[in-house]
């Protein structure tokens, strides 16, 4: 029968959560508790066998057998040595190993090894570190570079491979794909469920996968797909970690997008100011010189009319710019109001064409007007005149001096206005853009103007419940078509 002292010791070593192994100085196993066998999944026979068999069984389970063996040899060579380190197993578990010499009467007679399973703690630590490292990367506004960094960290920390996509209207654009083994490329498709906004864990050909969305206010803006280390399965907590990473990536993409939009808005404003100042300086230059010359009596009598005509024309040009800028302010503040009265569209077109006669003559373009009998509707005469004037002025400006046709057609419940030139034309990719403010179909280096005319046209026509579209019927020329209901629909 065991003494109380011995039974107390036995009960203690069996009750502890640590695996305990005691070896003598010759390397023979003196003692091993049940927990030790369980941690290393050892049959009793291995414990009873020589140390070589035990070590071989353990080496087969550790991630780095070379380092494991080197450490054992070091402990053997220095009997006084005490140590504490982590041992990573191939199945993903992490054990904390402590070792100290066993002494009897001041002499080292053997060594005690203890092993404790710290997998949960290590996983948590690793996930926290990964998350904090990724968050630091994601603070960058260069979002693609940041996501490449995230993929690298993720592969280093918990996955065999990682692919990251940005989503543009549900179409993925891969920005990173990294594999631990560079010979194994990683080209997974973004999982359907992720496109729908849910994170998912799945298996393909025996490999474990996780795929998570990057959510943002604008919907799903990206996705990350991970493949587990060979022979391992992802756990629910890995999915949680990946989801959190996805949330942070989504937030970061959102920030970067907001920043980019703000930058674009500032750039558009700067370009507009630069163009506007250029456009205003032109007429002012002509006015300034003409006025100075008249005042100094430098203009010969036969040129006086010419000088005054220049002053009048440039004055009108400046007034038009000011009107356009005021209109933009009105449109932006929602203060563009219409006053409806019976209007004949044909008459408006005739009046506008007559007013633009000097510009037409100077450009060399001839304008042919085809207008049916009165085409009347409830419209705003002033605003409609603005539309017609803008379209004809554009045709003159980009018409290369070739003929311009303007056609007014009376249809049942609506009128149609067509303004067609045979000039530069508008490339298909610019046809949407020309109706947005500050945009232009041609380079500002070559053609002046504020880039507001067609935006104002579209806003007015829509205010009159109509629609405007642009067609380039052949390789040369542009045709603007306006459909205008005779009675505007209440908005």
């Amino acid at each position, binding site marked *: 029968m065991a003494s109380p002292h011995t039974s107390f010791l036995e009960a203690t070593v069996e009750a502890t959560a640590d695996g305990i192994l005691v070896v003598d100085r010759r390397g023979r196993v003196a003692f091993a508790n049940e927990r030790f066998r369980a941690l290393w999944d050892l049959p009793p026979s291995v414990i009873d066998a020589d140390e070589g068999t035990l070590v071989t069984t353990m080496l087969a389970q550790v991630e780095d057998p070379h380092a494991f063996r080197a450490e054992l040899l070091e402990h053997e060579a220095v009997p006084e040595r005490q140590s504490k380190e982590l041992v990573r197993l191939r199945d993903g578990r992490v054990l904390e190993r402590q070792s100290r010499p066993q002494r009897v009467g001041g002499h080292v007679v053997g060594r005690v090894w203890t092993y404790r399973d710290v997998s949960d703690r290590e996983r948590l630590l690793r996930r926290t570190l990964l998350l904090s490292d990724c968050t630091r990367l994601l603070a960058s506004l260069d979002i693609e570079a940041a996501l490449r960094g995230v993929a690298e960290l993720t592969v280093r920390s918990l996955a065999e491979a990682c692919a990251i996509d940005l989503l543009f209207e549900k179409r993925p654009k891969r920005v990173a794909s990294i594999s631990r083994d560079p010979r194994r490329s990683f080209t997974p498709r973004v999982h359907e469920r992720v496109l729908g906004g849910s994170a998912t864990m799945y298996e393909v050909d025996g490999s474990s996968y996780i795929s998570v969305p990057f959510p943002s206010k604008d919907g799903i803006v990206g996705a990350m797909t991970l493949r587990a280390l060979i022979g391992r399965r992802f756990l629910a907590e890995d999915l949680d970690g990946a989801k959190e990473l996805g949330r942070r990536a989504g937030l970061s993409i959102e920030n970067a997008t907001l920043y980019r939009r703000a930058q674009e808005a500032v750039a558009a404003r700067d370009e507009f100011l630069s163009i506007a100042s*250029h456009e205003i*300086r*032109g007429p002012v230059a002509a006015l300034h010189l003409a006025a100075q010359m008249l005042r100094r009596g430098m203009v010969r009598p036969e040129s006086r009319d*010419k*000088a005054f005509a220049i002053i009048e*024309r440039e004055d009108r040009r400046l007034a038009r710019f000011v009107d356009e800028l005021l209109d933009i302010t009105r449109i932006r503040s929602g203060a563009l109001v219409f006053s409806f009265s019976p209007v004949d569209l044909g008459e408006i077109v005739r009046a506008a064409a007559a007013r633009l006669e000097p510009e037409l003559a100077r450009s060399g373009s001839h304008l042919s007007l085809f207008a049916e009998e009165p085409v009347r509707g409830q419209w705003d005469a002033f605003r409609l005149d603005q539309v017609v004037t803008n379209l004809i002025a554009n045709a003159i400006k980009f018409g290369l001096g070739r003929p311009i046709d303007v056609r007014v057609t009376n249809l049942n419940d609506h009128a149609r206005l067509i303004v067609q030139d045979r000039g530069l034309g508008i490339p298909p990719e610019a046809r949407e853009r020309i109706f947005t403010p500050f945009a232009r179909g041609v380079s*500002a280096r*070559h053609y002046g103007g504020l880039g507001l005319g067609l935006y104002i046209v579209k806003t007015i026509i829509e205010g009159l419940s109509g629609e405007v579209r642009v067609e380039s019927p052949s390789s040369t020329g542009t045709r603007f078509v306006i459909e205008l209901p005779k009675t505007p629909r209440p908005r």
Partner: protein
Amino acid sequence: MISPVMLVEDDEDIREVVAMALTDLGYNVVTAVDGVDALRQMRGGLRPSLVLLDMMMPRMDGEAFVGAMRQHPDLVETPVLLMSGHQKVHQIAQALHLTALVKPVGLDELRNTVTRLVGPPG
């Protein structure tokens, strides 16, 4: 006959009024509506003493025109005076080693600059 001052400007009003001013100051002035027109006249043998040049023109802008003009051995040294409302006209002029005036230009400024570049009207 002293060689003329050439004015390249697509805006008709500015072209007219600047030509009027230079003529009145006593210079012989020829005009071109843009870079393409100016090059055509130069190919026809025109050798101006000075080119007054707008920057922003259809078909061929000022920068492209200067490049094309400098290809001709007779026109490598011809002084060019940029006149533009563009905010960056001085930067552009510096890059092309040219003189620049920012629109709107006063009469005195115009006369002084032209006189400095080609001398008083003969």
